């Protein structure tokens, strides 16, 4: 039998992993739902964010929280340039063209990072108060994992409030459900999309920085984690913040548990589950039927 402490250990580890998946993937889900754009380069923005965070800390001595903010702002700004100059030309193009364009972009990002920073893994040096263990009363646990869970919950709450309670959130929900109708009601979809894209990329950067500690940060990052980010989005349903949140938690916990108890076959289970789920509900767990 598994003891309570062991079970809590597993659950907390999985939830922490799920939070990182959620923070990175949420932007991808919303942009996919809004424009139907298959952006395989989303993980690339997470990587660039991670590099900005880690390098500004290690080389310039910026504190962790400030570095995260810098990463968010810079990546959001970079992504606006990409979106206005390049992505916008492909909104009406075929899915294949979007896939090719974004794979090409991933290669460009990987090569640029390798050329500028180098191929080695970049370490994330956490501030001292995030290191070590915390006492939870009945057990102790890694402080940083608890920080991740806290950050994830805060972000989820913020996004949920933003989606449900603000004018822009309502516009996004309307556009995800029926773009043409939203457009004819006078919602400026182009502007809305640029803002959403920038915000989503910024969130990816945040996830890249927060997750650098246990996902590792090297130039192959966007290819290595591409499939898992896509699985989270597909399972959660396009354009659903809560959907991505629960999907990320499920997959995070499953992945963490399976890697511990079935180090060989864990991934098989996740692939098989995704296939079965998508056959049962092609629109994902929380998506609306087309």
């Amino acid at each position: 039998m598994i003891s309570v402490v062991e079970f809590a250990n597993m659950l907390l580890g999985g939830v922490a992993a799920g939070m990182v998946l959620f923070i990175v993937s949420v932007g991808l889900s919303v942009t996919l739902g809004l424009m139907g754009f298959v952006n395989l380069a989303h993980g690339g923005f997470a990587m660039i964010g991670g590099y900005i965070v880690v390098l500004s800390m290690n080389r310039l001595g910026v504190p962790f929280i400030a570095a995260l903010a810098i990463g968010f702002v810079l990546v959001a700004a970079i992504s606006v340039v990409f979106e206005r100059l390049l992505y916008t030309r492909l909104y009406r193009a075929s899915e294949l063209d979007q896939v090719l364009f974004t794979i090409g972009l991933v290669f460009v990002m990987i090569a640029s990072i390798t050329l500028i920073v180098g191929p080695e893994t970049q370490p994330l040096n956490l501030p001292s108060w995030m290191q070590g263990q915390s006492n939870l009363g009945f057990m102790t646990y890694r402080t940083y994992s608890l920080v991740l869970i806290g950050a994830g919950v805060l972000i989820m709450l913020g996004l949920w409030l933003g989606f449900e309670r603000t004018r822009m959130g309502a516009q996004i929900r309307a556009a995800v459900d029926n773009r043409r109708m939203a457009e004819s009601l006078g919602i400026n979809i182009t502007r809305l999309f640029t803002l959403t894209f920038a915000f989503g990329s910024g969130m990816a950067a945040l996830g890249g920085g927060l997750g650098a500690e246990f996902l590792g940060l090297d130039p192959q990052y966007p290819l290595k984690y591409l499939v898992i980010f896509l699985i989270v989005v597909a399972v959660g349903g396009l354009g659903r913040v809560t959907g991505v949140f629960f999907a990320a938690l499920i997959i995070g916990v499953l992945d963490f548990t399976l890697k511990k108890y079935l180090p060989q076959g864990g991934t098989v289970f996740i692939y098989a589950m995704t296939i079965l789920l998508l056959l049962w509900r092609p629109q994902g767990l929380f998506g609306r039927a087309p």
Partner: protein
Amino acid sequence: MSTPANTGTATNAAPGVGLSAAARELAERHRLRWWEALPWLLAIGFYFAFPRYLGFGTEMLITILFAISLDLALGYAGIVTLGHAAFFGAGAYTVGMLAKHGIWTEPITGLLLAAAVAGLIGLASGLVLLRTTGLTLLMLTICTMGLLEESANMAAEYTGGFDGLDSLPIQPVFGVFEFDVLYSTTQYLYVLAVLVICFVFVRTLVYSPFGHSLTGIRENTLRMHAVGAPVRTRLVVCYTISAALAGIAGALWAQANAYVNLSVLGIDRAATVLIVLVLGGYGRLYGAFVGAVVYMVLAHFLSRLYPSAWQLGLGLMLVVIALFARGGVLGIGAALWHGRGKERGPS
């Protein structure tokens, strides 16, 4: 089409007689043209000109066959897949496992077995996957491939796991021509012969009514449903044939190299073949040839010397193709040849 001679259908007149220029072009679409001999002449020329590079040439021919199989699904039927290496790997592992465990080592029947196994996997997965479209379809192709890759990794007892299976005992072709790992003369000619047969098959297929119905489905699925075409059956059949051809390519790879490992099933290989096809031009039959040659020659010389610069260049090339030149190298060539500006999409 106002003159009486032109109102007659092509079926009761000899093709090309009494038709307008456009109709004649349509009726003669499938005719062999002089330049179609070029790739084969070049392939034979390569054999005599570069005897030291036959191993490289063999790899190139196998890539061409793999890209042609993808062209059938992606270029003609419009099935966007990032998991085609699943079938390449299925073929390679069929040959590899049968040979390593001493069950079957004859190469030509080995190809047929590999085609059957890959085709069956294509049929089974196609029956369920092709119900979906868009991102869901893309994800399902990736997950199917991942499932196979992880299964091969787990079943180490049969597949060799991460290390794969090496020194496969493959019998000589027709019992006479032995596979020599150092000088790939047998491999080159054997693969070339298989490529010719497969290519003739695919060429016949895409110009048949079946092939045209695939193009119709790619261009407008709704309208094909409306005219009563059995859309899903056509797609599944196409996917199965494409999978079987990819399986043959994988089997050739295993036989030519006498080993098989997990790289045959990975997303890297699936992405590479997609890039090869798109570089040459998809939906064009000869795009696979041009793409494989351009990609592999560039990769051979650049990727070892300047790996990052190669990746940067490749990425930029993909971006430019997706934004400005959707027909690939052949598309640009055709646009220049016909002198009518930019060509959008495959012909």
